[in-house]
Structures are given as C-alpha cells and as structure tokens.
C-alpha cells in the first residue's frame, strides 16, 4: 500500500477549497499537479451510489478554464478554433456547449474539451494535465484573431445527479430552464456563475465556474442541503467509466484517433467528406480515411464475466489466444454491481457480444465486448 507516483506533496498546487476538503474528511492525493480529494468519509462506493441517487458535489477547479476573446469578429475566432478540431464550431448556437478534441498532424488526440458559444466569445474547459500545453497550442494558432485568456481567478464545481437541478435551483432558479449542454451566466451572491448543464458522470447535472471569492460560500450552501454530498476523484472515475466516457491520457491520447476512440459522434457532418467545411483540421487525412474505411482498432466496452476487475493494462486475447488489444480503463462499477472496462481491440473483434479473454495475474479470464454506457445516462435533453 504505497501511494504517490513521484509527485512530491510540497510541489503540488492547492485548491481554493483545500481547507474545506480537509474539514470534510477528504483524503488528499496528488493528481495532475494538485492535491485533490480522492474520497471523503463515505468512501468511493457510497459516494458513487449517492451521486446516482441524489446529488454529488465535485471540486474540479484543477481543470483549465480559458476564454477565447475575438480581436475582430466572433466568426473569425470560431473559424480559427475550428481549424484545430474535427468539430463544427461555427455551427454552435449562442448559449450552447459542445464536446471538442484537439488533434495532432497524425490524427491523434492532444486533449478533449468542452467549448461554449457565449455570444461575443468562446469559453473552453480543458483537462488539468493538458492545460499548459493547450493554452500554448491555442496561443500559437489563434493569436492572429483571438486573445487567449487563461482564467486563474475562478474555481470549477460540478453538481451531478438526479437531484442536482432541485438543489441548485434553490440558489439559482434560472437553471430549471436549462437543458443538456446549455450554458448561462447568472449573477448571484457568490458572484457571476458560468453554468453549463453537463458533466462527467452520465447523470443530469451542472458544471459551475465561480469566482474564487464565492466558491466556499457556494460549496457550503450546496453541501448544507440534504441531497448533496461531497464526492471525490475516485467516484468521479467510476461514474465516468460506467457512463462510457473517456479519460484523457488513458482511453485517448496522442496515438489514438477520434475514430478509433469511437468519438465519431463528435465529428459533425460539416467537417466530414462532402460537408460544407470538410477537413481542414490537423490529422484530417487519417481521420477522414478512417471515417470512410473504418479504423484498424476500436475502443469498446468490456464486461468481465467473473467478479475480478480488469484494469488498465490488461492484455486482451481472442478465444484462440491471438493478442488483439488492451484495457485502457477498468474497475468495479458500483451501479452495475460488476466489473466494467473499456479498451482497444482489433476491428474484427469489436462487435458487441464478441467473446474475448483478458489476462489477469497470468490467468486468461473470459469477458465480452459490451455496449456503452454500462449505466443508462439521464441527461435532460
């Protein structure tokens, strides 16, 4: 039972809510350069189940918040941003958010992100571990049209679960009118909140950007409600895994293309062959080729037959023992009440229902390619 992966606590950044996490019994661990709560007193399993049953509050202030402010028109900025991703940015309506991916010249994924059209500018949320590189990437490619502003005076909270709306609406009634992937800016006594109806759990819920000066008040007001519990990174991981959502650096990285990753839903028609703005993004040759011909390997859901979890790194084999892939995320799904995993397999073995074997501690154990999400999503569309 050793912790730490070379990150010294003294080198780590602290969240604005650090003292509150400690007060709440949070077990702080190094993650992406920050001291983050991996779990609180309830433990990962109960925190996970509570989020699915009521509402969980997550501090995700380690993530990068960036404003893309046009030097000229919004359209020029949107067009320049669109050139970095196989995604339709220009077509995103005001007040709406969309999932995006920065690709590299070989069609791999530099990061995945959320971006929102806020009328006269774009708001972008990127992964903590990639944020420095992402800002540099945007500055390098957008500066002609756009001021890239890394936001450093705001925290980011996520409130997730079937009771998230009811809880947040007590403080911000305007959220009741929002639907999945809507964004809104609302003035409150905690400051101007930048709210999106989205998240990383497969549940209905919200991500709330709040000024540093207001975050403790907002967090305490939410935690004082019966249905809200503080939830750590451990449950965040099991929730997103059950929802079939990718974790950057594990399920997607610079070597995996969006098509291999099964993220073709994020590549709108306008950017595909025959679309009005087809191609024109880094790695377009590979990505458009894979869209037309199919990729060599695919990210799939996996259900081990026994109770033994199959975690990241487990090698996958066909029934005849041919190596065909590897698990990229896996663990126990508290809501599924069984182990669940995802990984990459050769296309011939990617069909749902295909029997495979996963090697755990030298033993090949049976598992099956399965549909994702493992747990039904409950977004308010």
């Amino acid at each position, binding site marked *: *039972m050793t912790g730490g992966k070379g990150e010294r606590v003294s080198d780590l950044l602290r969240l604005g809510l650090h003292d509150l996490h400690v007060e709440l019994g949070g077990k702080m661990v190094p993650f992406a350069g920050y001291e983050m709560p991996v779990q609180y007193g309830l*433990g*990962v*399993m109960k925190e996970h189940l509570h989020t699915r049953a009521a509402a969980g509050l997550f501090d995700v202030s380690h993530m990068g918040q960036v404003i893309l402010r046009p030097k000229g028109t919004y359209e020029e900025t949107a067009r320049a941003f669109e050139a970095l991703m196989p995604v339709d940015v220009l077509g995103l309506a005001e007040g709406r958010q969309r999932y995006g991916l920065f690709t590299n010249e070989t069609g791999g994924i530099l990061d995945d992100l959320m971006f929102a059209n806020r009328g006269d500018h774009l708001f972008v949320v990127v992964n903590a571990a990639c944020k420095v590189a992402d800002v540099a990437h945007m500055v390098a490619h957008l500066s002609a049209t756009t001021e890239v502003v890394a936001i450093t005076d705001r925290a980011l909270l996520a409130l997730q679960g079937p009771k998230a709306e009811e809880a947040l609406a007590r403080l911000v009634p305007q959220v009741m009118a929002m639907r999945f992937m809507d964004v809104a800016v609302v003035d409150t006594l905690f400051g101007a909140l930048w709210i999106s109806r989205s998240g990383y759990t497969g549940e209905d819920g919200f991500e709330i950007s709040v000024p540093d000066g207001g975050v403790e008040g907002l967090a305490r007001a939410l935690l004082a409600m019966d249905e809200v519990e503080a939830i750590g990174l*451990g449950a965040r991981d*099991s929730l997103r895994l059950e929802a079939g959502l990718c974790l950057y650096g594990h399920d997607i990285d610079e070597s995996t293309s969006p098509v291999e990753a099964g993220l073709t839903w994020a590549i709108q028609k306008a950017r595909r062959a025959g679309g009005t703005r087809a191609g024109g993004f880094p790695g377009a040759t590979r990505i458009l080729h894979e869209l037309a011909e199919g990729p060599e390997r695919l990210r799939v859901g996996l259900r081990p037959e026994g109770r*033994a*979890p199959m975690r990241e790194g487990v090698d996958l084999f066909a029934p005849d023992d041919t190596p065909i892939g590897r698990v990229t995320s896996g663990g*126990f799904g508290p809501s599924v009440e069984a182990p669940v995993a995802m990984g990459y397999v050769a296309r011939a073995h990617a069909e749902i229902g295909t029997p495979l074997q996963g090697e755990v*501690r030298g033993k090949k154990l049976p598992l099956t390619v399965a549909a994702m999400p493992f747990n039904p999503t409950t977004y308010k569309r």
Partner: protein
Amino acid sequence: MKYTQEHEWLRVEGDVVVVGITEHAATQLGDVVFVELPEPETMVASGDEVVVIESVKAASDILAPVDGEIVEVNDKLADNPGLVNEDPLGAGWFFKMKLDDLSVLDDFMDEDEYNELIG
C-alpha cells in the same frame, strides 16, 4: 492477536492460525469488491502472495505471514467481498494456516506495537 508489518492480523485457534487484515488496512484499501483466495491444502512460504484483494481503487496482495499449509479459506468472500470492510477482524478473515511451530508467532507485533506503527 499478533500483527504483521503488512497490516495482517494473526489469531491462534487451536493448532491453526487465522489470517485477516486490520481495520486500518481495510479502511486504507477502501471498498473491497473482489477477493481471490488460495486453494486449501496448499503449502506456502512466508512472503508468498496468497490473496489478491481488489478494492474500487486498486489491487493489493496479501502475503503469507509464515511458512505453513493453507487448511481453509473463507469462501463467503467470493459472494460478499464487502465483509472485509464490514468486519475485518471477524467475518472478513481470509484463510487459516497450519504451522509446524506456533512459536514463530512470537516475532510478530502485539496490539500495542501495531497501534504504534499505524500511529
């Protein structure tokens, strides 16, 4: 009751030693979701990895604390691995070992020494 540096407890029952993990270890591991136990009637040496515990967070090994024979394992953990969290010192035991010489247990920590270790 004796304790190991690896946070196992050892309890003598007649001529066998029952082995489990301490409350401290169970808390550190988090919710246990899978336990892989050895086959009964296996001879093991001290330091052998005899049990694998998977929690929601990670997999951990439990080492044989001494040389001897595994004579019985706790089959209830197959269907109910959560017993390790609910009752680590009782119903959450892992296996029973038969030793040639029970005096080897004298080398392990007693409760006071163990409590000092976990501070």
